């Protein structure tokens, strides 16, 4: 096929201007050729016979007059078995293999196969027979990939109905080996292998319909699951100033979340943080499968010093991989850290295109891009009747820790849950530092609504009393108000806060959350009689200590029962009957 070529006429930072003859597609990939190097770039604007391309690499030493080869393909990722457990850069180059081949530094202009087509063989089991009618997204066969059954599907962009002409026997094949031949309505035939490409900026829609996200996605973080839950297929965001614990919260979620697959997109953040995940995940075991956590994880690492244009792409790369596994009826969680860096990458490109800037120089289309990204989440009903989900959680790093900035505001418009981290809570070492009064969620919790309403009421009132005490002092506060304050502090200390470094406390199962929150609710609603504030304070501190000790005990252990008994004896006359506990 005759591909278009062009010539560079201008270079400004990572953007090149190319004059071309023939046809060029928006978002098409082009290669700027300089000697042996081929620098990957993407068309982002076309004007008359000039195309503007953002280059995914350092543009130094390119010259006006250098050739650009257009590929006629949109920026794509390779889909197929072998993605799990991989560590990719923003353009799906496997980082460990790059390191093996090129050493310490990331080379320029190198493109590597994402799926190790030479090394890996897969046990293919056909699901269709000759003569079967199929269409895009239908499964042709399966291969086992770790714990999962990986579906080999008809590429999602195939239009119309197809008939299976030929399919290979069950056996071992490499990803690029042809396994099936299909014929379309107009007698065109295609040979399919186990892998195909998909353009990252287009959502995969080869499913029957999208459903409303209702089932909770368990993170085992109490304040999230109980108070600000996330649904499978839902979206949430975590904005917070630096040092408030965004990344730690993401790391905890990536470890304990009850989903099948976790995709971590480290987008423009410190390399050191992702190194910890990369080095530790292979050593940790997934409690659900007993295998290494890495086997259910894909890491997309485009850290802050890696090229900016690839940072913009990395979020889409991660989303596409998530959608691909959702097509197999799996529950996928995508964690993007941080979407602000992604938005900044858009801002840099927009600035070079000399577009009229919006607020804080972010492009005018910032909101729609953010909305598009989060809208790629969802629960979907697939053609075979099963459902799969993609949940998206993004951190936001607002400048100066101020939530009134464009990225946070645009994100809040489209997400289903908001976990706002507060500097005050992190300074007070109250982790996770999610602000219980600011945050919200539209999804349903694992515990009864009544318990949450009660708790919220006490948190609200407790905070009011606390503020009043700051002004008029403890002396001017009534014992009743003081007890409300103590109750809210108690709730905060024993339930909202959680020790991520303790084996037991780090992950609280939904059953335990229900069990413990019911007892806390009873305590909150119990009428305590105290002579003085000091007596009340002493009592609640003791109760808190017992509760915290309780949190560190395994739920099925003897000690757990004992500690519970000791708490119950402390609260004389606590009414536990009405809920039948």
């Amino acid at each position, binding site marked *: 096929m005759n591909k278009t070529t062009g010539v560079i006429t201008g270079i400004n930072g990572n953007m090149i201007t190319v004059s071309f003859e023939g046809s060029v597609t928006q978002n098409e990939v082009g290669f700027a050729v300089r000697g042996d190097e081929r620098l990957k770039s993407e068309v982002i604007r076309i004007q008359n016979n000039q195309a503007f391309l953002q280059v995914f690499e350092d543009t130094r030493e390119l010259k006006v007059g250098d050739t650009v080869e257009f590929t006629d393909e949109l920026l794509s990722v390779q889909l197929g078995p072998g993605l799990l457990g991989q560590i990719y850069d923003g353009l799906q180059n496997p980082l460990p293999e790059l390191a093996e081949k090129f050493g310490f530094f990331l080379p320029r202009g190198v493109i590597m196969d994402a799926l190790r087509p030479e090394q890996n063989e897969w046990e293919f089991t056909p699901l269709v027979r000759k003569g079967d009618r199929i269409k895009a997204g239908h499964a042709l066969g399966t291969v086992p990939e770790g714990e999962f059954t990986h579906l080999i599907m008809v590429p999602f962009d195939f239009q119309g109905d197809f008939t299976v002409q030929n399919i290979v026997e069950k056996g071992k094949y490499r990803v690029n080996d042809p396994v099936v031949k299909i014929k379309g309505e107009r007698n065109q035939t295609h040979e399919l292998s186990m892998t195909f490409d998909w353009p990252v900026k287009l959502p995969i829609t080869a499913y029957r319909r999208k459903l409303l996200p209702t089932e909770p996605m368990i993170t085992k973080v109490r304040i999230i699951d109980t108070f600000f839950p996330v649904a499978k297929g839902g979206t949430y965001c975590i904005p917070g100033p630096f040092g408030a614990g965004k990344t730690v919260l993401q790391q905890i979620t990536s470890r304990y979340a009850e989903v099948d697959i976790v995709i971590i997109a480290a987008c423009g953040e410190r390399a050191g943080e*992702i190194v910890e995940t990369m080095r530790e995940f292979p050593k940790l075991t997934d409690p659900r499968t007993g295998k290494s956590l890495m086997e259910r994880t894909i890491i997309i*690492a485009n850290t802050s010093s890696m090229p900016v244009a690839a940072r913009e792409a990395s979020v889409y790369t991660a989303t596409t991989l998530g959608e691909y596994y959702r097509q197999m009826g799996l529950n996928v969680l995508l964690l993007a850290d941080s979407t602000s860096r992604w938005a900044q990458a858009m801002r840099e490109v927009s600035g070079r295109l000399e577009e009229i800037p919006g607020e804080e120089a972010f492009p005018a289309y910032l909101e729609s891009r953010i909305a598009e990204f989060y809208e790629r989440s969802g629960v979907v009903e697939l053609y075979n009747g099963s459902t799969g989900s993609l949940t998206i959680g993004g951190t936001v790093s607002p*400048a100066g820790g101020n939530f009134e900035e464009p990225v946070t505001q645009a994100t809040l418009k489209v997400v289903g849950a908001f976990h706002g981290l507060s500097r005050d809570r992190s300074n007070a070492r109250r982790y996770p530092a999610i602000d219980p009064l600011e945050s919200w969620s539209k999804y349903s919790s694992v515990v009864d609504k009544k318990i949450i309403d009660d708790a919220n009421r006490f948190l609200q009132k407790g905070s009011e009393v606390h503020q009043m005490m700051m002004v008029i*002092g403890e002396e001017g506060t009534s014992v009743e108000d003081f007890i409300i304050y103590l109750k809210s502090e108690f709730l905060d200390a024993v339930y909202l806060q959680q020790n991520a470094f303790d084996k037991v406390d780090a992950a609280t199962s939904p059953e335990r959350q229900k069990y413990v929150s019911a007892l806390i609710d009873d305590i909150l609603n119990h009428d305590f009689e105290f002579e003085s504030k000091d007596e009340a304070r002493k009592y609640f501190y003791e109760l808190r200590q017992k509760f915290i000790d309780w949190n560190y005990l395994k739920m099925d252990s003897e000690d757990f029962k004992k500690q519970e008994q000791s708490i119950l004896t402390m609260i004389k006359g606590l009414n536990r009957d009405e809920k039948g506990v």
Partner: protein
Amino acid sequence: MKKVYNRILSVVGNVITVRAEGIAYGELAEISTRRGKSLAQVIKLDGDIVSLQVFAGSRGVSTSDEVRFLGHPMRVSFSENMLGRIFNGSGEPRDGGAAITEDVIPIAGPSVNPAKRIIPKRMIRTNIPMIDVFNSLVASQKLPIFSVSGEPYNELLARIALQAEVDMIILGGIGLKFDQYMYFRNVLEEGGALNRSIFFIHTASEPTVEGLMVPDLCLAVAEKFALKGKEVLVLLTDMTNFSDALKEIAITMEQVPSNRGYPGDLYSQLAARYEKAVDFDTAGAITILAVTTMPGDDVTHPVPDNTGYITEGQFYLRNGRIEPFGSLSRLKQQVNEDTREDHRAIMDGMIQLYAQYMESEEKRSMGFRMSAWDQKLLRYGKAFESRMMDLSVNIPLEEALDRGWTIMAECFEPHETGMRSDLISQFWPENGNTAAVSPDSAEESMVRSGKKSEPDSKKSSAKRKPAAKKKQAGPKKSSKKTDRSQARTKQAADSGND
């Protein structure tokens, strides 16, 4: 032969344009003006119009001046001969010595593959207790010193340079005042550290753009030495000047500013430099300490704000001391487990006590009567400030830990410190404080002084401690904020009493 052009089309700010062909992006050129020669770098190509930023500034550039393209991007030579030498922002000697031209390497090279990074685990000792004990510096860490003009941040850098356990030091000065540059030179010379140092100095009197190259020059050289197995410490002062130079060029190039005039890529530009900090798996390491002065002492200013998101913690330098509260080394947990068993306990315990001292000090300054416990805390606080926090204190980690125990023994009874009993039995100095008031009488005296709420709240705070210890995830440091607010609550209570 390289092409020479002598028709400069425009001079705007420090950027000139010429018409030329076959020029590479990022290429260097040499401009000969009546003032002498200056390097310039290609920052934009548009057809045959080439924009160059002139390092020596455009003052005195005439339209007929000669522009000679060198055919290569900015490079710096790299050799052992550079040790002890001082260069300017263009990489030329400024100490009168001969130019070094061997082994040239390009600057601002590719970034390190994350798959090749390792979890850092080597501590760098500086003999400054506020760093070694409370916020340990770790090889491959990138840490800014947040400070304001007038603070002795350069003095601190010079001391760290002299005392840090590293193989070599590379100092990058950006917009440095001349006397500060001389200060660094003299201090390192006197301390005998000059022969393991390399200076890249851009002084405030030189054109701003020349300073832009300094971090890249330092880090390119550092990277090569680190790959040869050297433990390199890179000191940069002041990164706010670097950011301002970026701003100047961005505005000259008519880029859309994002926040307070800074370009939208400020984060990426800073990250590209800071992320050069690395611990090579099989070779040396680069550690970066960089001064960032906060305009108006405002940490939400774009430069410190972006820096904070990039670096692994920060040191706040205020009133000539490293603040124990805001300062944080995110990597200290990686190393302070293996130093000495009391390290973490001293680190947490002394700061918690210091936080209580601040509370008492605030009460004292408000004119409240001091209880015996307050008196102890005041005594402790003063000792802590003069014998630990003061920047002139210069002792190794172990001695600092011992000194910590001594200070506590002089001021408190063992059980008042909240330290674990096994550590107390091991480390508490034998000839500890005998003159101290016993806790009972302390409580009595407090009751006498009319603060009835005091003993109880003290009990509860003692009870709170173990709870807090278990709960607190991550860096266990007493928080200034809550202590402050507790102090405020107590004051309010006290004043209500009065």
